[in-house]
């Protein structure tokens, strides 16, 4: 059970109680770090970037007006920081032709795995995620792992709602193709 809301801590920090930031840190450090670590795929970089995210959040806390939830605001900083960091490092990602994507549906992914999931499937999913681009990884993780709504993802990523939906649909298809290939090679 959460004792106080984020706004309570934010108001305390804004009035000069810097130590209250530790409470927000306790609440969000794990999911934010986890998300960044999966986007950048490097532990050391993730630690540095997560620290950077929280420092940015602290510096700009006076500018937080509460238009969106603190969580969404923080994830937006995390998303932008992680994506900018990956853009600086040139990485190669798996490219799948549009024709191949068009031949699959998002629901196919459910068929590949069915309802039962074992450790091997989770490992395969982790490997498949590594083959996606950082942006794609971020979007799918925000939706499925962080349980964010389309509207929240729209605010975090700065994309339009339609764009988010389209991208998620394509990422699901892409994951299906990657996982099917993996199953074939087993």
């Amino acid at each position, binding site marked *: 059970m959460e004792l106080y809301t984020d706004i309570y801590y934010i108001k305390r920090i804004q009035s000069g109680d810097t130590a209250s930031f530790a409470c927000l840190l*306790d609440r969000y450090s794990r999911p934010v770090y986890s998300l960044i670590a999966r986007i950048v795929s490097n532990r050391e970089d993730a630690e540095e970037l997560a620290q950077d995210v929280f420092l940015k959040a602290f510096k700009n806390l006076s500018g937080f007006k509460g238009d969106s939830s603190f969580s969404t605001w923080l994830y937006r900083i995390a998303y932008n920081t992680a994506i900018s960091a990956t853009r600086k490092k040139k990485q190669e990602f798996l490219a799948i032709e549009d024709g191949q994507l068009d031949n699959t549906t998002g629901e196919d992914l459910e068929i590949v795995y069915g309802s039962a999931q074992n450790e091997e499937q989770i490992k395969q999913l982790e490997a498949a995620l590594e083959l996606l681009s950082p942006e794609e990884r971020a979007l799918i993780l925000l939706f499925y792992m962080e349980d964010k709504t389309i509207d929240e993802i729209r605010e975090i990523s700065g994309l339009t709602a339609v764009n988010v939906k389209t991208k998620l649909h394509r990422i699901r298809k892409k994951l299906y193709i990657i996982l099917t290939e993996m199953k074939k090679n087993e």
Partner: protein
Amino acid sequence: MKELFTRLPEKKLPDNFRADVMKTVMREAVRMKKREERFGLFITIAIATVMLALGTLALLYLKMPDLEFNIPDLSGVPFFIYIGCLVFLLLAIDYKCRKHFYEKRSKQHS
């Protein structure tokens, strides 16, 4: 799908992460406070300089009206000083008497 994603293991947060971030945040808070203080001082100095400059310009270039001071009648001042001294003297005697009385009473009780 969602169930599968929620089963993905969470990346372990480094042990010293919280302490490191809080150390950086505290350092930043001190830096921000100093910056605000410096900014406040700069604004005060800037406003004071502008006001002094405007005052000097006004004295030099504007026709300022002559200032007239009406000195009040000071003939009653010695009388009021005398009354004030008397009041002060009476208050001092009162203080001494009370002090003496309380000390005497506390001695009797002990």
